[in-house]
């Protein structure tokens, strides 16, 4: 084996240029679609393909066009309010945006995952299986949320105190030109 003959190599390069990537990538993708197609065939054979397809595509659409815009907009709202409420005189007030963002984000994450328990959505099946009520979960989530915000507030207060002794720092912006 002394490498590919020049004509074959040329053919491969032309094929790659036409395809747009290394032909190995095409092989890998064909393998991917073959396996995924086989599994999709099993879904079809199980007689659940309509619901499956709706949930599968719906999952991607829900994330990209509902969940992502929602939290991106929430973040824009937090950022703009943080910009408006900045206290310019003192200069020693550190930016508080992340002290709001982090507890709010973590609390929202916990709600996103556990909403069937927190909002009693699975109450009926839960009671049948576990023999108990889902009532305490709302309290648990509120408790965790309160602890997160309280912890954040305390951390912020400490950073304000630590900054009080220092000379005011200039407002932080990326240098413009």
């Amino acid at each position: 084996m002394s490498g590919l003959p020049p004509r074959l190599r040329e053919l491969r390069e032309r094929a790659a240029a036409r395809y747009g990537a290394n032909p190995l990538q095409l092989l890998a993708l064909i393998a991917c679609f073959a396996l995924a197609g086989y599994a999709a065939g099993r879904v079809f054979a199980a007689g659940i393909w309509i619901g499956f397809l709706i949930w599968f595509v719906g999952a991607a659409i829900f994330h990209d066009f509902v969940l992502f815009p929602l939290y991106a907009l929430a973040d824009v709202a937090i950022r703009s309010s943080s910009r408006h409420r900045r206290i310019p005189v003192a200069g020693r007030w550190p930016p508080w945006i992340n002290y709001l963002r982090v507890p709010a984000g973590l609390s929202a994450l916990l709600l996103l995952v556990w909403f069937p328990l927190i909002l009693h959505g699975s109450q009926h099946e839960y009671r049948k299986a576990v023999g108990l009520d889902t009532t305490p979960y709302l309290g648990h989530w509120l408790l965790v949320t309160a602890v997160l915000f309280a912890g954040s507030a305390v951390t912020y207060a400490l950073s304000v105190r630590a900054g009080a002794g220092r000379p005011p720092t200039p407002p932080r912006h990326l240098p413009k030109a």
Partner: protein
Amino acid sequence: MSESRESTHDDGEPRQPSKARRRRVPAIRIPDNPPPGPFRPEFWRSPLRGPWLTSVLGLVLLGGITVVAITGLLSYAAYNPWLPLNDLTPGKGLLGFYLFDWPTSPSWLYRLTQGTHVILGLTLLPVLLAKLWSVIPKLFTWPPARSLAHALERASLLLLVGGAIFEFVTGILNIQLFYVFPFSFYSAHLYGAWIFIAAFVVHAAIKLPRVVGTLRARGVRHDLGASLAETRPEPPDDTGLVSPDPATPTMSRRGLLAFVGGGSLALFGLSVGQSIDGPLRRTALLAPHGRIYGPGPNDFQVNKTAAAMGIAPAETGDGWRLEVQGPRPVRLSRAGLLAMPLHTYALPIACVEGWSTQQEWTGVRLTDLARLAGAAGAVEVVVRSLQKGGVFSRVSLSAQQVADPRSMLALRVNGADLSLDHGYPARIIVPNAPGVHCTKWVRRLEFLRESA
């Protein structure tokens, strides 16, 4: 502008159109300029997005999801679906190629693998969300497909993203008993996993060289050491991840990673307790099976109450008899069973939903019952419950499971009679078997010669 390019695109020679079919279908023309909004790169302004951040998150997912996928496939094997009655996805075809006789030792193996599957899955959710956030500009890349290669790769990404979210969503809803999906969880979660795995492996293979290259070139220490004031956008490149018009950072890159890690820690810390016994169980404030029932011997996790499974008090009273079928069928009362040699073992109940608990069970060995019914040598058993309906009212246990001296028909737990919700008058307990195979309210044991 592009009009003229289009018209001179043919090979120049005025060729006689032998057949008009070439031009009959108007080609769908994609404008060169992206439409306004998210299709324009300058729409995306986060100064933190870039190949470094995406590589770090991708690497965490590569390791984590690999473990979740393997433990998930093991969970299917743990059901011993090759035995009659046990396969909840009988149409699996070649996807069951790896199944094997699930062992009974170590007794805590399924507790560990399935606890890991569920808790690690929950822990990885914030990383998955952050990873999707980091690459979201690519969803709106323009033109939608640059080449055949690009089009095919994007099609595989639909399988990747759709599959990832589908698997996380169905899993997370199922462990909360929130059965809102219009399909059997077992089929959908298993076949969905294979679609996802196909796309995941290829995605990792295509992207790994770039991830390694990026982390080699930029290192990890630089960004982990940079405070907010020192945080700069990553240098412009061809990945389409770095914003051409970055906003002023409001969070450092390490701050973002800590935020994501904090989310993982919160989900982990508030749910891992449901897989641990003792006082730590109380820490599972947000997990379906972290509840405390009380201090009594029967006060541990219940899954499927007697009332929900239609167990009438009369069926479990003094009139209850265990039918043991084999070459010499026998019928035994509870007193008769208690008169047989009793053994006590501490064994876990480990559920497919991820929670588990170890208790001390006392009962009669399955091998003793088999011998009583005249079944000698390697025998399997079909266990039948009093419960009305439900996929697990009948299950098969393998010859290996029957033969383990710790496999019992349990009558007592922690020194007390079983409670009705824990399977009174008698339940199966098999080391390392999924909880649903530890059948409660047993009515009949049918010993059969090993089939395979």
